[in-house]
Structures are given as C-alpha cells and as structure tokens.
C-alpha cells in the first residue's frame, strides 16, 4: 500500500515518514481476538440467555408480548427513575470526585493524603449493598446517629420532609461508591498532565484558573467523559444497595428485573429478561452519545 498523505503526520512543522500500515484492515482484529474470546466465554455466552428468554412466555412459547410490555407506564417509570439516578450520581459524583483527586494531587496537601485517599477509595468503591445501606441507616435512619444528633439540638429530622428512603436519600448513599470510583479512575489522567504545560502557562502569565479552564480541562475531557460514563453505568446497574435501603419500593429497573426473575411469587420471567435487554440497549445508546462527545473532545488534541 502506498503511503498517502493521510498516513504521514505533521509534527513540529515537519512531515514524518508514513507508518507501515497492514495491508488489510481485518488484521486489526487479531489483536482483540483474545479479548473477544474471553468475553464470549465468560460474559456474552452466559448472558445470551437474556436474549433468548426475553422472547419466551411463561408457558414456554415464543412471544413478543414481553417487549410490548416494555411500554407499560410502570416499566417506563422504572427506566426513567434508573436513568435519573444514574445521571445525577454520575455528574455529582464526577464533579466532586474530580475535586477530591485534584485536591490530593495538586492542592498542596500533605503527601500521605494521596495514598490514603487512593487506598480508601479502593475499599469504598465497592462498599455497597447491605453493609452500605446499613451504615447509612445507622447514620440517617430513624434512630440513626446523625438523626439523634440533630434531635439533640432540637431538629427532628423525620418530622420534616426528609427521609433516607427516597430518591435523594438513595442518591446520597450512592455517592459513597461513586466518589471513590471517580477518584481512582481519573487519577491516571491527572497524573499525565505535563508539568511543562503548567510552567509554560505560568510563563505566559495565565492564572491557575485559566490554566485549568483552557489547558488542563480540555486535555482531560476525553478521560473525564469516559469516567463519567463509567459512573453512569455503575449506578445504572446497581441493585443491591437500592434493594437493601428501600426494600424495593424505589422501582428502579434493576429491582424490577430482580422481582420478575427471582421473586418468591410466580411472575413473568420473560418480562424481566426483556427489561434487561432494554437496559443493554440503553447502555449502548449511552455509549453512542458518549462516543460523539468523545470525538469532539479529542478533536482538540489532534
């Protein structure tokens, strides 16, 4: 294949010789084959049942009724609720997590804070489900520590509109694993900010704020976006924490699925699988949106 001008790059004003490109674009596949095989063996294969069973009725025959039920207001509400909590916790988690990571890396704090935060984030990132719900119930539940503390000062929390067991309560609880996830995942990107850029921007008279706004953040944007979608997916698929906290009264999509598939009373398993397939589709759409945003962000980097 002859070198085209697209193959060569202009770097520093000088043309670099074109890179050797493999002849056919299929060659690229070989590199990801191990990944594909592994994923098929331990992820896609087992999950394929989702696809097949979603077309099955309770009696065992083929049906599209499960998918039709996806338009029921109850199901749509579940999706809506899941999407809302995922967006909110991804964004808020993303912002504050970013600030936490920034603070220990660039904030001039004592050095050991950094490894403390990193290791703590490791543990906290997966602190979920029953122990997490229990911890917050111990804190903000009806007889929780903080509730009692407020009561001591005369403010009866549960006489007001406040409750741990609603959407906002769950959001507060979700943050416990969203913040650390953001911290851990964005740290490599923050690490990669070149000192030279900071120096150069200072030499040119830019303030700290301007450095971040015009240089650091744009550079980091692809990674930030990628991490936010990770937080989004994390919240979207979360089940145990919500269940432990609200006993299933907050009808997230994952809880709806669990109720249909594993319930103690005969339900419609096919519907559960159809809802799960819906989640897969939503995840795919989110990735599409994210990819578009990603390309925009990358364009700056050339």
């Amino acid at each position: 294949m002859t070198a085209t001008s697209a193959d060569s790059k202009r770097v520093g004003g000088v043309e670099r010789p074109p890179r050797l490109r493999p002849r056919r674009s299929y060659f690229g596949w070989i590199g990801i084959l191990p990944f594909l095989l592994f994923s098929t063996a331990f992820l896609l294969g087992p999950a394929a049942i989702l696809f097949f069973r979603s077309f099955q009725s309770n009696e065992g025959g083929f049906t599209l009724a499960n998918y039709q039920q996806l338009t029921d207001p109850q199901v749509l509400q579940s999706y809506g609720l899941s999407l809302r909590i995922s967006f909110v916790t991804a964004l808020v988690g993303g912002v504050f997590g970013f600030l936490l990571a920034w603070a220990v890396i660039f904030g001039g704090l004592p050095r050991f804070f950094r490894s403390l935060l990193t290791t703590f984030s490791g543990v906290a990132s997966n602190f979920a489900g029953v122990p997490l719900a229990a911890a917050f119930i111990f804190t903000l539940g009806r007889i929780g520590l903080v509730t009692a503390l407020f009561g001591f000062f005369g403010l009866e929390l549960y006489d007001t509109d406040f409750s741990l067991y609603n959407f906002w309560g769950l959001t507060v609880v979700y943050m416990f694993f969203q913040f650390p996830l953001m911290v851990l995942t964005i740290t490599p990107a923050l690490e990669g900010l070149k000192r030279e850029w900071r120096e150069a921007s200072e030499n040119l008279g830019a303030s700290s704020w301007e450095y971040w706004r015009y240089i650091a953040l744009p550079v980091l944007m692809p990674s930030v976006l990628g991490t936010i979608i990770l937080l989004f997916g994390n919240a979207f698929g979360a089940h145990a924490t919500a269940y432990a906290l609200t006993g299933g009264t907050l009808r997230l999509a994952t809880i709806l699925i669990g109720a249909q598939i594993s319930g103690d009373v005969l339900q419609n398993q096919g519907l559960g699988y159809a809802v799960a397939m819906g989640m897969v589709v939503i995840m795919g759409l989110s990735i599409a949106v994210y990819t578009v945003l990603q390309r925009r962000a990358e364009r700056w980097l050339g």
Partner: protein
Amino acid sequence: MTVTAPPVVLEAPSAHPDSEIKAGQGSKIFAWLIIVAGILYFFTPLVATGERAFRAIGGVFSFEAFRRILTDPGFVDTFGASVINAVLTIVVSLLVIVPTAYWVTLKVPKLRSVIEFITLLPFVIPAVVLVFGLIRMYSRPPLAILSSRESTRVVLICAYAALSFPYMYRSVDNGLRSINVRTLTEAAQSLGASWPTILWRVIFPNLRVALLSGALLTFAIVIGELTVALYLGQQTFGPYMANLVRNFVAEPAALTILSFGLTWGAMGLISYLTRRKPGRRRLRRQAVGAR
C-alpha cells in the same frame, strides 16, 4: 524529525508533576475544604457503624462482637480465600485488558466503542443471569468444567475478571491517553524491541498508576462479590458476610468495620509494594519529537 539527542528515556512522568510548583494559597484552602468535606461524608457512616459494633452486646461498650468474629474460623478461611481469588483475578484481568487497550489505541481506534460497549456490559447483566448462564454453559460435556470445586474456582476467577472489565479498561484507557503511546512504541520499535518487550518493558511501567487503580478496584469487587460465588457453591467472603448480616445486629456492624479495615490494609500493601523503588533518580522526560 526524530530525536538526535541521547536515547529516549521511557520513564513515567514524575509522581507529582506539579509538586515543584507551589499551590497558591487560594488553591490550598479550597483543597482543604474539599478534603474535609470528603472526610466528613465518608467517615460519618463508618463511625455510626462502629458505634453499633462496639455498643453491640447489651448496650455496653465492648469488643465482644469483634472477638466473636475474629475467633470464627469461617471468617479467616473465607477472607483468605477471597484475597487469593482477588489477586488471581487481577492478574487475569490485566493480561486480557492491557494488551487489548494498547492494541485498540494504537491500531484500530475505530473499534474502541465496540470494546467499550462490551466492557460496560457487566453493569447491565444481572448477576443471577450471569451465574446461571455460566452453569448452563460449563456443566455439560464437552465443556464440563464445573465438575469439581477446584475447577469451578477457575471459572469463578475468570467470571470475576470479566466483571472487572469496566473498571480495569477505563483505568488503563485513561492511563494510555495520558502517555504518548504511539511515540513510545515507535521509539521502542526503532530500537529493535519486539511486541512482548514493548508491552512488558515500555507500556506496563508507564501505566503504573493506572494499573494500580484498576487493581484496587478489582480487588474490592472480588472481596465483596456475592451472587456468583453463592450459586457456584464457593466459600468466599461475600456469602459469609451475607449469612451473618441476615440475622444479627451487632456482628454485621463489627464485620463491616473489620472487613473495611482489613481491605484497606490490603490495598495499602498493594500500593506500597508497587510504588517506585526509593533511590531511583527521577529523570526528566526527554521530548521525543516536538509535541
């Protein structure tokens, strides 16, 4: 233009790139505020749990609940088993993800969204579906791997590696984005390195921070995982905790504190063991070509 100066130094960026630039006063105060807010948020629930744990038996402050757990052989056995599983999972996950992420970044960026989609699938596949799917696939000939406890453990670890993909891939991807992969590779190639050498001696060391993040996240997942272990009949920490939590008030709180502390300690150990050895000079990165 290629570099004519001394050979390329393929060192990782310094651990604190901005540490030589003093943080302004305003920044510092802001940073402290953030950290204090974070500490308040994170530690209050833990303190509340601890209060329950100590107050557990009969409303009197005591270590009784902790003592009961630490002397339970089930605790030590299951936690130990989970730690071993976690370490093995990290290894498998790294071996699958790092070369793949590297390849995708370098050769086939168009396939990136496909890979990302697959790595995010663990979020939307319910755990029960996954475990029963695994059982279906590997219970019968010709793939009858699930015939004994030990071989099932292998399947468990591979499944855990798959579950860690979202976190591992994102960390590694972030890490790759922050280093100049293409240039490093070309430089190494021009020095005559083969692919395995490039991966092992160039890419891996430069991804240290990213790999650490991914490893810590994976470790946490494996320690706490419940559903897959449960239905595969594996005696790991997740099922043990769930069993305890079902019935008692004090022991679960104590168990939460203990497992939190132990896991934090393990993470600290991993972090310590993988930090750069002291005494190695921090070398300035040479610019390779103009950036």
